[in-house]
């Protein structure tokens, strides 16, 4: 079985269990909606103010959503020691990581997709003209969040104080990614929207570097 077929079988399992229980998506969507709605009522921002701090608020909400969503990824595999069963069954252990990464990215993108129209209405930010560019920024940013978060989730799942460890490791590592994502989003929210290729290039580099590192060393993350 190739890496691709192992990954697709495992991704199917991830989607089936999540859509059956709806644990992650429900919690995350409710949380992220509360953040956006609360801020909107508290500050009642003008369009100009929304353009200035909207991108930061959005990515802050995505970050918290991701840290909620990523924590259970590998913890669930410890309940019945299913991670061991997977390690004994796959031909390439990277497939286990890759399937979780794909699932996390997908769940994060679904959450963002649900949030964006509400954000646009509440904060009076017109998004229709920049949908493809925004989708690109969201995809690259979410991929970076997921790669880093899934890796750290695998590390922290085997540690004591795991609930504390993940955000503690995740937040400093994600700072450059969040700055790049926020800057790229801010450029799209501006009066004259533009795609900032310098920040996009940074996001691509971040994703590629972390993915390569995990591909090379990911096997060790899964060892007991």
């Amino acid at each position, binding site marked *: *079985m190739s890496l691709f*077929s*192992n990954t697709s*079988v*495992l991704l199917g*399992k991830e989607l*089936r*269990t999540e859509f*059956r*229980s709806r644990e992650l998506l429900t919690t995350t969507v409710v949380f992220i909606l509360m953040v956006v709605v609360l801020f909107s009522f508290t500050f009642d921002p003008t369009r100009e103010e929304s353009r200035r701090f909207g991108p930061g608020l959005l990515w802050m909400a995505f970050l918290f959503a991701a840290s909620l969503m990523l924590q259970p990824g590998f913890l669930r595999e410890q*309940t*019945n*020691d*299913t991670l*061991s*069963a*997977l*390690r*004994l*069954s*796959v*031909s*390439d*252990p990277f497939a286990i990581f890759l399937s979780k990464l794909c699932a996390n990215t997908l769940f994060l993108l679904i959450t963002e997709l649900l949030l964006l129209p509400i954000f646009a209405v509440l904060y009076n930010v017109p998004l229709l003209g920049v949908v493809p560019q925004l989708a690109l920024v969201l995809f690259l940013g979410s991929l970076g969040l997921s790669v880093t978060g899934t890796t750290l989730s695998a590390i922290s799942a085997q540690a004591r104080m795991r609930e504390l460890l993940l955000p503690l490791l995740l937040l400093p590592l994600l700072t450059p990614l969040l700055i790049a994502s926020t800057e790229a989003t801010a450029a799209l929210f501006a009066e004259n929207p533009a795609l900032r290729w310098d920040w996009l290039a940074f996001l691509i580099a971040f994703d590629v570097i972390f993915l390569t590192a995990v591909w090379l060393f990911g096997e060790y993350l899964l*060892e*007991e």
Partner: protein
Amino acid sequence: MVTSPEARRVGLRFENIDKRYGGLYALRRVSLEISPGECVAFAGRNGSGKTTLLRIAAQLVNPSAGKLTFSPAQTGASPATKNTGFVAHATMVYDELTAEENLLLFARLLGIPEPAKRVESLLRDVGLFERRDSLVRTFSRGMRQRVAIARALLHEPSVLLLDEPSTGLDPQGANWLAETLWRLHGAGSTILMSLHGESEISALATRGIRLDAGTVVADTQNGANLRSILTFASA
């Protein structure tokens, strides 16, 4: 599905294996030669190192010192894969999936040809065919154990590692397991199992090894001694 005995014969060699968790030794200088096709019962009190030894044999845990080798030597990125079936304390199946979905998932990962057919036959064997669409979380402990055993047997492995496999099984289930193990043993599979006391399954053992505080304190192939090793563990 069972291949010829010669093709299945795999031996294991533990050389001076140590396993430490912090400052605590789970295993200390364990050296064992398990011949291809042997059926070995490990006995010992809780915490004697049986589970750790089996997890090392499954290559799920790396030893702190020493070496585990297979004969014939296994190649590839994950040598244990495909050749090893492992039944652990935990069921190693997903509570949120049905019995059939669980087995199909692992059958597909293992690259078993016609996975649906194999899963159906195993579900019938373990007496869960009627409950194949029920979520595993709705099962009793014994039913979960049946699914766990079915998962480990999916690919009819050359090396079968069983950590107290009859836990939770009713007499019918224990008989079925014993029959299945007899068949696999006859087909040349090497079986390593940890047991507490004598049972239908312990009759299979051709060798008994007692562990105490992570070291091998007795190792016998003699029938009477073997029984005494197993009964000592249950005392």
